[in-house]
């Protein structure tokens, strides 16, 4: 256990990257997810087509490939670069990949929320003369968001766990799982306690999320 505690700074450092990846990707994927959902339920056929092709394609691609594409494709081949320092550059590339991937699942969750809204409400709103955007903003989205708090919590937890994939070669963010792998490779730390330590770290991040979102979804549930 001492060897693990001696490495505690490294552990904290790893988890700080994990949290940074999760937080920023969550914001971007939520924003992109809302846009995608609006496109998928919009009256304009071309927008629907574009959004559904995007979601179907990205959601069925392994995250490893998406992140690899960000590292090798966008960065090395396309020359896309976000920051001077390597550390932050790979961070933003990973955020880009994680957000692009997670947005699909956010959009799926939101769309299922839109589907829960009774037909009559939307017809009533339309018959009052509300436009599509007003309908979305005032009637549909507030209720849809409330009914998908639970699923969105699942997406956030999955995102937290998916940040470990950002350690893939060609990207290599120094997040927690990579720190753990490096410790194992050095062969000095006790393996089992280290593993359990890192596992507890992730559980500490994920369990409260599940709990908070679970409670929120019950409290905010739309009574019908």
């Amino acid at each position, binding site marked *: 256990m001492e060897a693990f505690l001696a490495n505690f700074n490294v552990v904290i450092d790893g988890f700080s990257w994990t949290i940074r990846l999760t937080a920023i990707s969550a914001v971007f994927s939520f924003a992109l997810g809302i846009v995608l959902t609006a496109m998928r339920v919009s009256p304009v056929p071309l*927008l629907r087509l574009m959004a559904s092709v995007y979601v179907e394609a990205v959601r069925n691609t392994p995250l*490893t490939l998406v992140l690899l594409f960000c590292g090798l494709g966008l960065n090395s081949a396309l020359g896309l670069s976000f920051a001077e320092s390597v550390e932050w550059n790979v961070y933003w590339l990973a955020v880009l990949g994680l957000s692009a991937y997670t947005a699909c*699942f956010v959009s799926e969750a939101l769309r299922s929320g839109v589907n829960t809204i009774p037909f009559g409400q*939307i017809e009533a709103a339309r018959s009052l003369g509300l436009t599509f955007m007003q309908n979305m903003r005032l009637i549909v989205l507030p209720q849809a968001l409330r009914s998908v708090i639970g699923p969105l*919590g699942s*997406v956030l937890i999955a995102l937290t*766990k998916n940040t470990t994939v950002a350690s893939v070669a060609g990207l290599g963010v120094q997040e927690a*799982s990579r720190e753990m792998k490096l410790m*194992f490779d050095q062969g000095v730390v006790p393996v089992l306690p280290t593993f359990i330590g890192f596992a507890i770290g992730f559980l500490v991040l994920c369990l409260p999320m599940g709990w908070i979102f*679970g409670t929120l979804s019950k409290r905010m549930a739309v009574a019908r």
Partner: protein
Amino acid sequence: MSVLKTKEPSRLFDAPGPKAAARQRVYSVFAALAAAVLLAWVYLGFNRTWEVVRADPGALLGGDVWRPAEDGQWTADKWEPFLDPTLWTGMVLPGMVQTLTAAGISIVLAIVFGLVFGIGRLSDHAWIRWVCGTVVEFFRGIPLLMLIFFTLAAPLAANQLFGVPFGTFLVTPLTAVVVGLTLYNGSVLAEVFRAGINSVPKGQSEAAYSLGMGKTQVMGLILVPQAISSMMPAIVAQLVVLLKDSALGYIVAFPEMLRSFSLIGTRFQNVIPAAIICALIYIVINVSLSRLAIWLERRNARRGKVSAKATVAPGVPGVAPTDVVADTTATPEDPPKG
């Protein structure tokens, strides 16, 4: 792509009148333009001519920057390797076989693991419920990649803990991937199975008990067989997750399909064509599997059965959301049940 074929009016808007139709055309044009600009940027970037355009935007009007450049990714040379059958038989297929092997072994083991722990969570003995619950929640709550890393380090752990000398047993990347996939997906399936068994009407088990069956008989002969069909869609959907996650093997040098394409990309300097073709293969397989899951679910619905549905997210299923999501299958588009 069901969206394309839906001709019935959507729930959120009426059929457009002349004004709305005109407005929609304007939006379509804008959307098409935005998409075209994005695609053009990506095209030029991978064509290595973006720098030229940035120096002199007027070059966009000429044909030169659009022609596939020699050192770009779109030139025929970069795609030609994929026309060679030996590349497919020599590199892609072996990788695909490894991916399917890992996925195949894992799904079978995960179903067994899921059954054991799903039933364990329904046990009459509190301590069995508790142990099974803890195991399932633990493996569901930590990242799959960490499980794979840990399995790879198992010989070291065994050496540290029990003094097992190195070389007694080896952990290949395939083993690590299979163990990781089994534990994670098995835990997810355990929850699905539990929900599936719970969804069998109570009268069934009561009738069986009143016929004098024991607990094991009721479970094995009455509940599990009936639950299986309601769990099929979820199992197939989990197979998609499993197949995608098998690509994590790339990180631990497991020679699966993504690694094959990565090797091709390095050998022929065609990273982008390799990535595109690799993604297409995954998409085709996964979309077909998802279709199968949807078809199974519809079939269950036609037969008046409820499908146990646990996965809403790429990873963690139902924090409490399953009830919400399950309801959405009953949208007006669905055919009336029964």
